[in-house]
Each structure stands twice: as C-alpha cells, then as structure tokens.
C-alpha cells in the first residue's frame, strides 16, 4: 500500500478528471431522456421506436462504440469528445426507459384531477407528472451515474486519462496495488455520487421521505 501513499497526488488529480468527464454525460443523459422518455410514454408509435432505438444503443459494447462514433460524427478517435459522446449515449439509453416507466407510474386519476382543475398539458407535465414521477427518475439517475462513472475508465483505451489510467499503467508496470487503488477509487467515487443523489432526492422530493417514515 506504499504505492497509494506515494501517489495520492496522482490519484487525486485523476479523480478530478474522472468526475469532470462523467458529469456532463450524466447531465446530458437526464436532459435528453426527459423528452425522449415522454415520447416513449405518450404515443404507442413513438414508444416502439424510441425503446427499440435505446435498446439497440445499449447493446453496443463500449470499445465498439468508440470506433463507430468518429466516422459517423467526424470527430477524432483518440479524443475526449469521443469518450463523452459515447458515455452520453449510454446515459440516454439507460435513462429514457426509466423516464418512460416513471411517467407511467403516475396515477391516472391524479392526472385527470389536474386536467379537471384546469392544468394545460405543458404546466401539468412540469408541475404534476414530472414531480410525481420523481422517485423513479431519481432511481434511473442513480443507476446512470454509477454506470457512467464505472464505464468512463474504458476511456484509457482511447488515450483519455482518468482513473482508468491506474489500470493500464498498473498492468504494464505489474503493480497490483495500483490497479486495486484504481478499482477502489472508482467504486468509492461512484458510491459517493450515488449517496449525494439520494440526499438531493430528499431535498427535492420531500414527500417521498414522509412516506418512508410512515
């Protein structure tokens, strides 16, 4: 474990890089999945299309996706943009299904009541449907965040430094402690972010807390 003590600087620097590279895909995944999930929830035709598309994207292994994106988008293969777009695609693929399920979990009677007291479609979506779908959306966001943070390590294969650097560097130099430190650091960062999202959920969705206490 002396390796860890001697390299705390490196681990810290890579952790910051790692968080920076993961944050944008998680946020973009949430933003895109709200309209996409709504489309999958609202109309039968778009439901099939959207869910088939995200299902297909979800099956593509990461290393293969890194190879497919550059010729399709005209970006460089060994670039951070490539990693971030790939991670965003996976985040959207995971989140969209959750948002569709979340909207479907809202009681139809509540929705009807909102219409009855005069909510228009737009205001009803933001003030009734989405907040009530909140707990399931949050569950999806937690899965997305943890997966994204864990998956970002693959970026080292296309030359992007983050905690994944400890895997390949440790492997080449045959330092078990370095790889182990990398794995533990990724798990700790992922679980910390997960825990932060739970806290955020308690603040933003106070009614779920009351239900849990009862």
């Amino acid at each position, binding site marked *: 474990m002396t390796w860890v003590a001697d390299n705390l600087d490196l681990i810290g620097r890579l952790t910051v890089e790692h968080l920076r590279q993961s944050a944008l895909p998680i946020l973009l995944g949430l933003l895109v999945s709200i309209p996409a999930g709504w489309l999958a*929830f609202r109309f*039968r035709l778009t*439901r099939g299309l959207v869910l088939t598309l995200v*299902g*297909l994207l*979800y*099956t*593509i*292994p*990461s*290393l*293969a*996706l*890194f*190879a*497919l994106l550059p*010729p399709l988008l005209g970006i460089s*293969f*060994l670039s951070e943009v490539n990693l971030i777009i790939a991670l965003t695609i*996976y985040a959207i*693929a*995971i989140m969209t*299904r*959750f948002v569709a*399920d*979340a909207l*479907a*979990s809202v009681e139809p009677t509540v929705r009807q009541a909102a219409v009855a007291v005069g909510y228009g479609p737009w205001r009803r979506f933001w003030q009734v449907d989405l907040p009530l779908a909140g707990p*399931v959306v949050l*569950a999806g966001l937690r*899965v997305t965040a*943890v*997966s994204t*943070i*864990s*998956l970002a*390590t*693959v970026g*080292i*294969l*296309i030359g992007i430094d983050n*905690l*994944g650097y*400890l*895997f*390949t560097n*440790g*492997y080449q130099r*045959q330092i*078990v402690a370095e*790889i*182990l430190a*990398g*794995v533990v650091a*990724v*798990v700790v960062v*992922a*679980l910390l972010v*997960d825990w932060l999202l739970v806290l955020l959920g308690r603040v933003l969705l106070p009614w779920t807390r009351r239900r849990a206490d009862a």
Partner: protein
Amino acid sequence: MNLFSDAIAWIFSPDRAEGALPLSEAIGTHLAFTFVSVLVAALLAVPAGWLIGHTGRGREVAVALSGAARAVPSFGLVLLLVLVLGVTHKVAASTTAFVLLAIPPILAGAYAGIEAVDRRVVDGARAVGMTPGQVLRTVEVPLGLPLLIGGLRSATLQVVATVTLAGYVGNWGLGFYIVQGIQLRDFSQILGAALVIVVLAVVLDLLFALLERAVVPRGVAAGRASPDAPTRPRRGSHHALGADPT
C-alpha cells in the same frame, strides 16, 4: 462513408482467414468465453436466486450486491485478476472476471422473477396442497422464467462487452483487433472489428428477446388480452437488473 467501405472490405478480405488471429477464430473465442462464463455464473447464481426469491431471505444482501457490482469497473477487474493470478493464467483469470461480472444480473433476474409472481397465485398453490418444493418447481420457477432470461440477457451483453476489453491482455477475441488497430493506427481494422462486435451483440440480444417471449407460460400469454397493456413498470425491467454497458 469511405471509412465504412474500407471496414467492410477489411472484414471480407481473404487475409481474415489467415494470419496470427483469423477472424473466424476470434469470433469463436469471443463466443466461447461468453458462453462458458455465463453458464458457470448461471450454475452458481440461479439456484441462489431462486432460494432468495422463494424464502425471501438474503434479499437485502442480493440487492446491495447487485447495486455495488454496478460500480465495479469491469476493465479494472479483468486487469486486476490477470495480474493477481499471474500472467501465465490469463485465460483462467479473465474467465473468473467474466463470471464475477455475470453473477449479479443473473442473481437479480432469478430472484426478481420469483418475487414478481402474484402472491395470490402462490397462496392458491399452497391451498390446493402443494409442498414448498412443488410450489417452487411448478409455479414460481416457470412464472419467473421471463425475468430470469432477462437477467441472462443482461449478463451475456455485459460479458460480450468485457471480453472485448480483454483484448487488451491477450491476442484473443474481437477486442484484440481494436487494441492492435489503435497501436497500428489501422482504422479500417478498428472499425471492421467494431462492426463485427456490434452484429454479434445485437444478434445475441435478439435471440434472448425471442427466448424471453418463448418462455412465457401458455396460460399467462393467453391471459394478456391486449399485447401492450402492461405499461406499468414491472419490478425488474431488464436494464434495472444490475448490468451496464461495458
């Protein structure tokens, strides 16, 4: 689109039949790693999952396990095990990593399948005099099969992706072409191999999708009047079962 035609030319080039790693051999190894790992993981996880689902005991442990497993970076796990078990045992070490990664989604599929069975059906089975073993064998397991297949599907996709990453530690499987292609700056090889991997993953996913439908017991299928009626989220739709893109 020139890059894509180059990639397709790479796939169908006669050179792919020879050389250090013929394409057919890479596909075969990739599939062999996947099937063996998923099979071993299933032998361990399915009985355990059924037991958890049937008794309701150990559920928290299983949920926590599949949640935490999602955080473990699969690439790191492969490299760690290869280094710990020794570079001379790469195959055994990599397979161990694949098995470990496949266990959580299969376990979750097995117990979620049984948990999702309507309690009234189980009570009914008991009321007509079935023993706990009969309830499990003839009621819970068949009704839980679609979710179990869903778990196997997630596990298989996870392993296919991780075997790709394992091309970094050995010259086997389809991932090796990509790793080698990156070193050689050979983009038609990178893209060609990627296309083969995508086709492989999509075909496997499709087969599991068909299997998931085929295992729905006849009585249940008949009970579903309209095909798209159940829009409510089920307790464990397949992406929620603890697997991730890798």
